[in-house]
């Protein structure tokens, strides 16, 4: 009997599991063949092409009226302007006049503008997705094929797409979509943001996701970042059990996280939008280990004011009056470009470019504004801690710490996401009060494997011995070191991380109960033995197996 195929892997961006039949986006629009000619009535052909563009513009404006927010509405209205663009229309007319058929003429006219936008900076390159969506709608209209979009269905389904355009999401019915799977996208893609807002499990950056056949039953695990094809009934039940939605979680606060022999390990929540705070409390989080502040800045043209920021930070602190709340200052750049923070020059490799603290060093006024708002929110709320993303060396951590202290924030920390920072963690530890390891980015930079690349997902495995070595360096450098990457959400790996010397674990709220239970079953020595076994292994797979074997001797 052939071995059943393993799950497809991607990046889990919205926790929980969902099971249902695959429904792909309908209407994949074919490229009209090069050289397609029309019958000879250029005037009628051009009129048909322009009428199709006008229909698209009108439907986009109609969709704008249903957009979930201002940002979505702006995008849809800008798309309508693209469909009505006079230069585009001139390009279509010119091509039809020399005999090119309307669908091909439209396709080529868009291509001319597409190149100009794609060559520009990251913000404009992102507009190419919007432009392609307008083009596909116009070509579909001319060819009489369905306009691309979310399939209509009364039955719950798993939506599979290359990516979701703003126009797709405006008409989405959250009651019938049990999970999202996309080929492209990252944690801040439109799909990811929408999924979290709706509370729908989602996995992005899954290679060949759109090759999944319509109707195929899949189990999407947004916590683990996997898609199981044709899952067994017991797989589905196990996932449901593990999800433990808030209604199944005891209202009484769970005991503090820690090992069986009493080593305290605070179990904290990663928060991406304020709505995550309630889930974090419901799942027994003791505080917030990573409060991402990007939601305040994304999809807007200017920097939010001090009061707006301070209110958002205070909300998180008030949700956990007795615990720590670690706020990360703005992590812009790379896969999270912001209109008001363009890179100083076009970046061929944005993940290696001006992002995180590097970007903030070029815009000290934004950092100063954020720190001032944090200081205001933190006054009278002792749990606040502040950390910087994408720190490389001790000079950067020292400068950040100084900026924090100038603002009246006396417990600065830094993320360890860059191998250089992990290797020289002792130098950084002299400048700040704590570390937090981001396993996802650390894996990306340690393995030179773009997080956005689904093809390299095997290299994003937090079990890689090289990654465990780097975590051990950071955890042994003399200041408390937490882990706030996806790695902390794996109960077995969580025990290994504690064995490596990690002081706290922060994860998607839904993962907390399972981690708490596993950790409570082992002594600190057992965790250390599991860590040693994993580091003694040569591959991620054998490291995982070795740690499992040690921990199986439990209780």
């Amino acid at each position, binding site marked *: 009997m052939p071995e059943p195929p393993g799950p497809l892997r991607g990046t889990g961006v919205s926790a929980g599991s969902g099971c249902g039949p695959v429904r792909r986006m309908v209407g994949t629009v074919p490229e009209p063949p090069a050289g397609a000619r029309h019958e000879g009535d250029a005037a009628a052909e051009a009129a048909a092409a322009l009428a199709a563009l006008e229909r698209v513009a009108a439907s986009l404006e109609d969709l704008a009226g249903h957009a979930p927010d201002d940002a979505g509405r*702006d995008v849809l209205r*800008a798309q309508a*302007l693209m469909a009505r*663009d*006079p*230069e585009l229309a001139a390009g279509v007319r010119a091509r039809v006049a020399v005999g090119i058929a309307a669908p091909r003429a439209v396709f080529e006219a868009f291509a001319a503008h597409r190149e100009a936008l794609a060559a520009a900076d990251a*913000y*404009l390159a992102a507009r190419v997705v919007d432009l392609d969506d307008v083009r596909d709608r116009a070509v579909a209209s001319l060819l009489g094929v369905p306009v691309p979009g979310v399939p209509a269905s009364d039955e719950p389904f798993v939506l599979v797409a290359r990516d979701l355009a703003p126009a797709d999401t405006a008409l989405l019915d959250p009651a019938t979509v049990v999970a999202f799977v996309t080929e492209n996208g990252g944690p801040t893609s439109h799909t990811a943001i929408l999924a979290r807002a709706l509370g729908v499990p989602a996995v992005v950056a899954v290679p060949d996701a759109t090759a999944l056949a319509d109707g195929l039953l899949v189990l999407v695990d947004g916590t683990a970042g996997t898609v199981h094809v044709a899952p067994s009934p017991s797989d589905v039940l196990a996932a449901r059990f593990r999800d433990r939605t808030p209604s199944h979680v005891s209202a009484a606060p769970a005991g503090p996280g820690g090992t069986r022999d009493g080593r305290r390990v605070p179990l904290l929540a990663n928060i991406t939008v304020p709505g995550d705070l309630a889930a974090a409390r419901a799942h027994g989080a003791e505080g917030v280990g990573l409060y991402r502040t990007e939601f305040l800045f994304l999809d807007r*043209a200017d920097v939010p004011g001090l009061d707006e920021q301070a209110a958002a930070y205070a909300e998180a602190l008030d949700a956990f009056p007795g615990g720590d709340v670690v706020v990360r200052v703005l992590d812009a750049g790379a896969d999270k470009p912001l209109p008001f923070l*363009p890179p100083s020059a076009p970046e061929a490799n944005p993940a290696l470019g001006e992002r995180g603290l590097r970007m903030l060093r070029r815009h000290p006024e934004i950092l100063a504004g954020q720190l001032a708002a944090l200081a205001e929110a933190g006054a009278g709320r002792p749990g606040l801690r502040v950390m910087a993303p994408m720190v490389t060396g001790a000079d950067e951590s020292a400068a950040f710490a100084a900026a924090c202290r100038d603002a009246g924030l006396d417990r600065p920390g830094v993320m360890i996401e860059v191998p250089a920072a992990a290797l020289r963690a002792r130098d950084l530890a002299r400048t700040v009060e704590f570390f937090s390891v981001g396993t996802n980015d650390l894996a990306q930079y340690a393995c030179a494997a773009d997080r956005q690349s689904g093809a390299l997902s095997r290299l994003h495995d937090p079990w890689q011995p090289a990654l465990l070595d780097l975590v051990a360096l950071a955890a042994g450098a003399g200041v408390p070191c937490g882990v706030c990457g996806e790695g902390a959400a794996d109960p077995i790996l969580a025990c290994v991380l504690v064995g490596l010397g990690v002081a706290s674990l922060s994860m998607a709220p839904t993962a907390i109960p399972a981690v708490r239970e596993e950790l409570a079953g082992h002594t600190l020595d057992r965790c250390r033995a599991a860590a040693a076994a994993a580091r003694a292994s040569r591959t991620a797979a054998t490291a995982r197996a070795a740690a499992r074997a040690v921990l199986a001797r439990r209780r």
Partner: protein
Amino acid sequence: MTERRVKIMSRVGLHARPAALFVQTAAKAPMDVTVALDGRDPVNAKSILAVLGLDAHHGEEVTLAAAGDGAEELLTTLEGILSQEEHGRA
């Protein structure tokens, strides 16, 4: 022909909402309107694709040009859009 040199004050450059507002305003005018970045050919100010394609950033100067009745008035309106510093949501 009336010309006007204007510095782009919008933090997002001539992109996103400012670009849409600029193009929509130009498109309402009966005459041709162009916008040019220094050293480059002028483009049709009524075209969102051409205007986005300029990739004009905060602090850069552009030259607006129009001819005919109401050209002065139109350029003043367009200048006002480009001179607005903030274009965020409320």
